[in-house]
């Protein structure tokens, strides 16, 4: 890896990786979410020239990760459930060490609501940081957050 590339990509990782990984984990569960994040970051590495011109790299890679995430979750059930306590594969597990009520409540949210609540309330990101991660406006993020918190 050339030094300049390494430095630039290192900076991208430091800035983007935590939010991207946490957003995707909130959306798709620990395993699928981390895999989707790793896929998106591998794509970013392969297209590092283009990434250097992107202003919102976290949001851009969030969209890139959706394709990977959908491919991985095909054959699994979507995380939002209606009746509550079942555990689709790849989802937030309700086994030992997890707060079952909280996990069930998060599962009842839409993906964007769940990610907004987790980023802001669980990880403490500012609204602007969470909005950038979801590649949406702050007002949209507020809507997701308000509905999710209800």
């Amino acid at each position: 890896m050339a030094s300049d590339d390494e430095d630039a990509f290192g900076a991208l990782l430091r800035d983007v990786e935590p939010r991207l990984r946490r957003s995707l984990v909130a959306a798709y569960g620990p395993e699928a979410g981390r895999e989707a994040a790793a896929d998106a970051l591998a794509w970013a590495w392969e297209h590092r020239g283009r990434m250097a011109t992107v202003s919102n790299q976290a949001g851009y890679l969030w969209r890139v990760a959706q394709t990977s995430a959908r491919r991985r979750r095909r054959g699994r059930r979507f995380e939002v459930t209606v009746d509550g306590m079942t555990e689709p594969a790849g989802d937030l597990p309700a086994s030992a060490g997890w707060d079952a009520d909280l996990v069930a409540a998060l599962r009842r949210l839409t993906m964007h609501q769940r990610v907004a609540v987790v980023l802001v309330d669980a990880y403490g990101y500012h609204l602007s940081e969470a909005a950038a991660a979801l590649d949406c406006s702050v007002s949209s993020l507020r809507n997701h957050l308000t509905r999710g918190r209800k």
Partner: protein
Amino acid sequence: MTDIDEKLRRLGDRLDEEAPPISAAEVVNRADHHPYPRQRWVAPATVAASIVLLVGVGLFIASTRDDGRSDLVTKPAGPSTTATTSSTTTTAPTTSVTSDVRGGLPGERQEIYPYEGARLAVVGVASGDGLNVRAGPGSDYLVVFVLEPLFEDARATGHNRLISGRGYWSEIRVGERSGWVNTDFVLQPGQVDDVTSRLYPAGVERPSGSLGQLATAVATRARGDEITPKVVIVDGPSDGEIGEVAVDILGVDDDSVGGFRLRIFAAPTGQGTYTVRNVEQTLLCTRGVTDDGLCL
């Protein structure tokens, strides 16, 4: 800090334990050994199976009437379903595959989108069908491989041709392989949004019915005043704890937006019926996509 705040904070810590940070080494190793995207079409066995199906196992290619439908392949397994909003039934092809590739390319080269490097998604191909990628621009060229209805990772080479009476054809690349597709069936995917609240704001009743009916209802609501869009079910319907169906709405009256892909998630209400839960929309762009995912 309230009790719920504390629980959420602990959840965040636990999620970080379950999904630890991704290092630069892991990223580079993944890129080197498993290039993104992980395409199902590159495996030789998959290609061989596709060719065997196409040539020797009674899989029909569409008729020589080259209106774009001739690029669709009807696979023997799985029914193809189309929404009833417009007539988009797959033709019943009977012709055999031609094996010769003519020297030179027909038609005229066009300096037009999709431009080199543009990411292309297959669009408007019914669930159960496939999009032929051919050795040259035109349906009388040999099929070299087939793309599924939801494939989103082809790249334009920038070589586009107008074939008289047969429309535009674009050369694409998928991994190490290349071929030609009718441009009616590829667009550039843009941003993905949850449009549930926009389509069904508070106070608006969400539709219920079979997944096929929901696909039609949501597509009808989403297309607004579009008069003659093309609506095709491109994935599903899939029954289960959460029903899923994906619909392409194409032919919208806009130079930059070629259409929309709606992925509908629905909650079961019993006896095979569902109610719309969420709708995700992917913009499908004609000319290009901005860094923000909007159509140029």
